């Protein structure tokens, strides 16, 4: 058992308090990034992931893209970042890139991890959207 898994909820709570998303409505109680999508990220990568996710939730997809690409420059092998970028592309309507980025996330995630199955879900969502 990786001890970091135990730490994550605490970190998450702390990070959730520390950052307020621009444009996030007061009283917005939607949970921050789910634990299983994080994987092992550095504090810098994690801060940017949270920022990117918040920007996505606020509907500012351009900002979210820029933030996540910034994070990927720091941690190019972090599947959680690729996956989050895939979600942003899906919301932007770029179905093809959403699928590709999710595949990339899946290729970097440990087999049978929550991240891998989450990536698979995005791939399938992109495929469904594409066939509409």
């Amino acid at each position, binding site marked *: 058992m990786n001890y970091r898994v135990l730490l994550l909820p605490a970190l998450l709570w702390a990070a959730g308090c520390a950052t307020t998303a621009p444009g996030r409505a007061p009283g917005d109680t939607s949970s921050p990034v789910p634990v299983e999508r994080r994987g092992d990220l550095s504090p810098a990568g994690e801060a940017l992931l949270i920022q990117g996710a918040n920007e996505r939730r606020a509907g500012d997809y351009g*900002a979210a893209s820029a933030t996540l690409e910034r994070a990927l*420059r720091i941690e190019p092998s972090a599947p959680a970042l690729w996956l989050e970028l895939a979600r942003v592309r899906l919301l932007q309507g770029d179905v093809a*890139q959403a699928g590709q*980025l999710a595949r*990339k996330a899946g290729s970097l995630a440990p*087999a*049978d991890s929550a991240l891998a199955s989450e990536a698979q879900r995005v791939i399938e969502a992109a495929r469904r959207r594409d066939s509409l």
Partner: protein
Amino acid sequence: MLALALGAFTIYAAVLNWQITARFEGRRWDLPAHVYARPLELYAGLSLTADQLEAEVSRLGYRAVAGRPDEAGTFRRYRNRFELRTRPFDFWDGSQPSRYFAVTFDDGRIQRVSDGIDEVAIGRVEPLLIGSIFPESGEDRLVVTPEDVPPLLPAALKAVEDRRFDEHFGVDPIALLRALAANVRAGEVTQGGSTLTQQLVKNYFLDNRRTLWRKLKEAIMAVILELHYDKADILNAYINEVYMGQQGNRAIHGFGLASRFYFSRPLDELELHQIALLVAIVRGPGYYDPVRFPERARTRRNLVLAQMAEQGAIPQAAAQQAAGEDLDLWDAEKLGAGWYPAYLDLVRRQLAVHYREEDLTREGLQVFTALDPVVQATAERRLAAGLERLDAARQTDGARLNGAVVVTSAQSGEVIALVGGRRAGYAGFNRALDARRPIGSLVKPAVYLAALETGRYTLASTIEDAPVDVELANGNTWRPANFHEESHGKVTLLRALAESMNLATVQLGLTIGVERVAAMLGRLGFDEQVAPYPSLLLGAVGMTPLEVAQVYGTFAGGGFRTPLRAVRAVVDAGGEPLQRYPLVVVQAVDGADVYQLNQALVEVMRRGTGKSVRDVLSGRRAAGKTGTSDGLRDSWFAGFTGEHVMVVWVGYDDNRPTGLTGARGALPIWAAIVNDIGSAPLAAVAPAGLESRWIQYETGVEVSRFCADAVELMLPPGTALARGPRCGFDLRRLGEGTVEWLKEVVE
């Protein structure tokens, strides 16, 4: 007659009026696009030393201070503790105000970043301005508003150039008379007596002839200007217009750019002695060039300071103190922040897809690139030194080798450094983009990948390294040979690729079909049509170093192709984002097949043609391939770490043989750069579905991990392997194996 003359003059004045107001109104100068390097990101864990951070902020013209850095653009360092205050900057993804960071280091990495109280997860320093895209005329400038101008600058200009600027109407009769008297005494034209307004007019039309007619015309235009516009406007126009220096075909205009050019600082951060130097330079940027004629410039600067004191613009004591200062010029070369013509060339080509030339040279666009000045400087230095060493080691009739380097980020496809030739600081033939040379054995990974993809081979499969006659379409027979003319018989794919065996590769390629290999190159990212001739199997295809980086980037990316980019984003003059160049990935090849291939490319470095640099890499895991073209004309190395993809080419411009293999020419340069930049080792995650097996390197039979030449490979599940001989009990090997096993358990 008089009426006629008066009429003619009126018409002439009207023409001049039109000319000068049009020019002045067109104060929306042509604003060249400004190009920035990557901003340095500060975060715990980043591989960066205090020295490197000091170099970075020095490149940005930061001032060292004794107390806490409270002003933008200053820093303080005490051993391994570093404090800095950044300048406010409008990034493509938002503005960052001036921020204070305290950074501590440990063992070559940033240990902690804080804002003085709380930990900061990530912060960034504003990027270095690396160049401009200026028009044919060479006119480059960075326009400043009156708020950007330190009050001492106008004071100095008036004190030295035009004492009655605030009172006169464009021309200053008193100054003119004084100059006339001086000229009469000297018997020639030595003094101008021109007001700042006249100088501005002169600068507009860039005519240095000192004829009377010219002067008269300037005077009339100066008066017209003063009639139309107020003093503040004219002064600001002057500050932005004047010619301040030259760098190759680039003409430095205005104090804003001059401040960056000479000191790497924004104008409002200049100290008194620096302002005085710029005002000294105005008088004659060639004559008072502080780089070429430091003493002359210094004398003139001190004269400016003295006149400022005399006019009461500054206290006498301040003038004296400033006069004792060094010229304090920004030594771009020493700081590793040269001029990047090769990289800018790539930037321009990428921008040309979306922008017209005139948009780039006029609209004041801000272009944000991925250039890393540290990696760039390292690559330039290592290439030049490597070529020097190679030239010295061989008897050549004065011919000098040349070369090119491309460095990209391994997963995101950003081009972070590009060296187009031996003399990196000079524009010229850009070999990284334009030298299309046969790639030799660099093509082999594409052959093996195509073979693995058929499912009929694994790295443990054996093929025949034996002479082969290939019937060509034209009826001729092609008889390839190995480098040392030998053949090895039955070999594993792993060994054949690691040791770059030609015969085995040709046999393999012909078996699976050359078309597959040609198609594979296209999928990997090579855009040109490749004819599927058998000679393709040994690399009879021309690519530029950048194209090779694109292909190898797909290996590094685990089968995902990412179009290479130099530009991250373009922002307009008002800070509005115009264009982003988003990260795009496309899966070109199955990840498991690429992972298998990459194991062989790692083996190249361990016991194949790349093993000679093992010591240089000091245990850093890397993957790559040597390439040598026919007749030893081109020496290549292409490879990657966990962080970077890097391609080095070495050869002669006139295509004569170099006598160098890829391993002897390009490889040592490649390894030296990888080592210098501290590139993170390769640590790819094995894709689901592959399983670990131990095989004998030469035969491919399954053996125990304790056998002498056992190699661990991740192979497709259920790969049928012949059983190898049981190895004798070797205590030494067992010892090593046990240590490794223990390590794995612990980790």
